């Protein structure tokens, strides 16, 4: 398995798989990383904040530049930049995959952090036999079982046997075990949890959907039209009843589909656009505050 497979050797960011250039880059990155880590650990407290603020700013600056800097148009492999701004555009574009990989690696650390946190909290609960420690034991056992059989299944599918494993006849114990625990239990429970929502919706609608005011009446009538329009049989029957099957003339405006489309296009979509716009502005403001380390929690170290 070639774990060092990289993008084709076409830029500063990509070196050929197994080449000395790649190993050199890995070694330099490792040395720089270790130096930065030790530097951060030994830095005086008053210096830590500027370092964290600086790194946060540089990280954010990359995506800001990528968005605003003119990007190469219709670039094909082998195309060379013709000016300095062009070269910067090429450099940013080439770096994007590498930066995305950085983010993926950081996400991997989050997974490790999550596992550490789970083991620490639930391990202590089991060891001290605190309240509901049985649930913690089930959680830990489930995690270990899924990791063991999931990893075993993955390993068995590598190499020459890989394609054969698409056929269930070639499965071994570990594959059946993964299938039982993952597809047979986890996935089914996942689907069951989602299905349970229907029961809560019914119960909540029965108790809360009451015509107590004009607003509630409008809401109920609108919901009723949208629900009925989802029912093909009702929609079809209504269209037949008003002589609109197939739809024609002015009467077409009174089919359930037309009424629903009117509601969706003129009431629902503008409302959602307004909400999305508000969320977008909020996200932009929050993004700026995080990028410039104006949030207290983001800037302290």
């Amino acid at each position, binding site marked *: 398995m070639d774990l060092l497979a990289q*993008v084709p050797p076409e830029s500063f960011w990509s070196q050929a798989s197994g080449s000395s250039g790649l190993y050199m880059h890995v070694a330099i990155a490792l040395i720089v990383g270790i130096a930065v880590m030790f530097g951060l650990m030994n830095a005086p407290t008053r210096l830590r904040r500027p370092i964290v603020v600086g790194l946060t700013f540089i990280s954010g600056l990359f995506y800001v530049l990528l968005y605003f800097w003119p990007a190469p148009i219709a670039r094909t492999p082998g195309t060379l930049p013709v000016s300095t701004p062009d070269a910067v555009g090429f450099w940013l574009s*080439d770096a994007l*995959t590498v930066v*995305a990989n950085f983010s993926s690696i950081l996400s991997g650390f989050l997974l490790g952090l999550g596992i550490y946190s789970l083991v620490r909290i639930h391990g202590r609960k089991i060891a001290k036999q605190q309240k509901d420690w049985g649930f913690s034991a089930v959680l830990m056992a489930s995690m270990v079982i899924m990791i063991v059989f999931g990893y075993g299944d993955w390993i068995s599918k590598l190499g020459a046997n890989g394609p054969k494993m698409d056929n269930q006849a070639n499965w071994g114990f570990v594959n059946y075990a993964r299938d039982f625990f993952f597809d047979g239990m986890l996935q089914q429970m996942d689907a069951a949890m989602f299905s349970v929502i229907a029961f809560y919706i019914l119960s909540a609608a029965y108790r809360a959907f009451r015509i107590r005011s004009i607003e509630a009446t409008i809401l109920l009538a609108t919901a009723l039209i949208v629900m009925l329009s989802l029912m*093909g049989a009702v929609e079809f029957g209504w269209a037949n009843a008003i002589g609109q099957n197939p739809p024609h003339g002015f009467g077409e405006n009174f089919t359930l589909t037309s009424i629903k489309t009117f509601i969706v296009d003129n009431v629902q979509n503008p409302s*959602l*656009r307004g909400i999305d716009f508000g969320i977008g502005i909020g996200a932009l403001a929050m993004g700026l505050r995080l990028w410039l380390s104006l949030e207290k929690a983001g800037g302290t170290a």
Partner: protein
Amino acid sequence: MDPTNLSLAEKLQSLPKSALYIILFVATSIPLFFTIPIPNKESKASIDFYQEVQKVPEGSTVLIASDWTNATRGESAGEYKALLRILMRKKVKFAVYTTADPQAPQASKDVIRFINDERVAAKQKPYERWTDWVNVGYFPNGEGATNSIASNVRSAFADKKDFSPDGALHPVMESPVLKNIQKVEDFPALIIVTGSNTSNVAIERINSLPILLAVTGVMGPEMNVYYTSGQVKGLVTGLKGVYDIETLMQKDYPDQVNLDNGAKYYPTLHLALVVLIVTVIIGNLGMFLGRKRSEA
């Protein structure tokens, strides 16, 4: 309070939760045992989705984001099955990736295997992995990965590998499916089948090729905003959308398997909605009777 002393109005307003749950359970289970043909009028969004997929030239490669797992299989699996049946009948190649969930590639492979078994049973050529389709796999950082795909798809997929017929793992970009793809615009369409917000991420970042969406019912209203604005060329929403596509396929491919999850589950959706509407009416009736009584 003794339930026998309750007035009709009070009884109608206080149906026990357990009774509601049992009624819903029975109502949604019964249609699963029968085939109930239901007349249908396909929505414009579904028709646009179907027509856009039909426009994809034979032999070309579409990019599919299969961002669903079994949690939403009631809707997403039906959408995915219908989509794959159309692509395979049109001999369109596809590359499948996901940014949503590590479970998603397995859910996708299970459906491909199901459709291939169906093709073999119908004496049709199965779709070969590597030659006709490739599994690009899971990208843990959805936003970064989607940015990379938009900027340089060869580079984004460079270290992704899949099994070739020789049994070894090879870079997906060397496969017959992707070897002619230089940039994301070379795909005639990006088709996203999702049960989460990966569609938003893609719409925000990829704007250089037609995007088609197949989403769950609850996502429909939000995604409809992008359909009406033209950012999405076709939209399949929930079970109604699945049934729409299946009935459209029935017109174009009358001799083949078309009616599947949509036809199976659409009657269930009907009855669930009927139960919902009836219980809301009962609750309101009880409230009106109670008011009338207190006024008198």
